[in-house]
């Protein structure tokens, strides 16, 4: 381990405390006992913060996590049946602790339509996606919801051989190219 006090002294010859803090973290040099005590203080501090967290703060944390999960999934190449729009929306409803009935009323969409969307039986339209963005106080942006729909569509377009064949058979004339 580095001697952080020595490093700090050296840095102070060149930089102010503010400049040091802006560019790096100089850890507090501690003995084993001090480290143990410090860890206990932090644990208690963390416990208190958790205990004092109100429902609003918990929902905020969980929605941020949901947003990051969507972002990370969208960065992945592959589509997953477990990470569809409907699955993430189900998680959203769980986080905000609403019944589907109440949620549909808040969004002003029909309950049965919401159910179909949540169960991935119907794709959401852009209007619903804007409403979801607003409902989350913009914590989960519309574009993220839309990219989930889009990712599924891309997957289906690649995979749906039956429909591709059926539709291809309906085309009367095909442009031909000479090699």
């Amino acid at each position, binding site marked *: *381990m*580095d001697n*952080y006090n020595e*490093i*700090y002294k*050296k*840095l102070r010859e*060149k*930089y102010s*405390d*503010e*400049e*040091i*803090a*802006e*560019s*790096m*973290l*100089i*850890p*507090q*040099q*501690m003995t084993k006992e*001090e480290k143990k*005590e*410090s860890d206990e*203080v*932090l644990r208690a*501090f*963390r416990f208190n*913060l*958790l205990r004092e*967290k109100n429902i609003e703060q918990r929902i905020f*944390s969980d929605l*941020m*996590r949901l947003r*990051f*999960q969507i972002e*990370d999934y969208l960065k992945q190449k592959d589509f997953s049946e477990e990470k569809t729009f409907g699955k993430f929306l189900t998680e959203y409803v769980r986080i905000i602790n609403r019944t589907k009935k109440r949620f549909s009323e808040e969004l002003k969409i029909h309950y049965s339509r919401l159910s179909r969307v949540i169960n991935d039986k119907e794709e959401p339209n852009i209007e619903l996606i804007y409403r979801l963005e607003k409902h989350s106080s913009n914590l989960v942006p519309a574009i993220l919801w839309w990219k989930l729909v889009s990712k599924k569509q891309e997957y289906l377009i690649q995979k749906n051989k039956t429909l591709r064949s059926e539709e291809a058979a309906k085309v009367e004339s095909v442009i031909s190219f000479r090699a």
Partner: protein
Amino acid sequence: MNLINTETGEELQGVIQRMSLEEILTVKNDPNFIFNWPSEKENEVYKIQLFNQEEILGLISLIESANKHKGKNKKIDNIPACLIAFTCRKVFLKDYEDFVSLTPKTNLIEYYHIKFGFIESRKSNGGF
């Protein structure tokens, strides 16, 4: 949170990636860093670079900006802030109840509070 070119004020796109053990060990010979980074090999160490560029701007497990990005003549600002923001994001994803802690030298505590918004856990011994 973005990296900032201190000369032009331009926002720059950074990329943060986990370093392999091999990479961590090579930082030992890198004159751009002061800490002994190979001693962090047991921990997760992440590097921040500009998009499509090789230069390492900063590292986190400890936190350090490369030498040319330290002090009043630094070329790029916000390096530790981006690394801390990245850590906070990871914490959310790991369900650690959005808790990130530092244990800095006591006389630097107020700067970490002002610059990064950390809340002090106790007055006498530097913990956030």
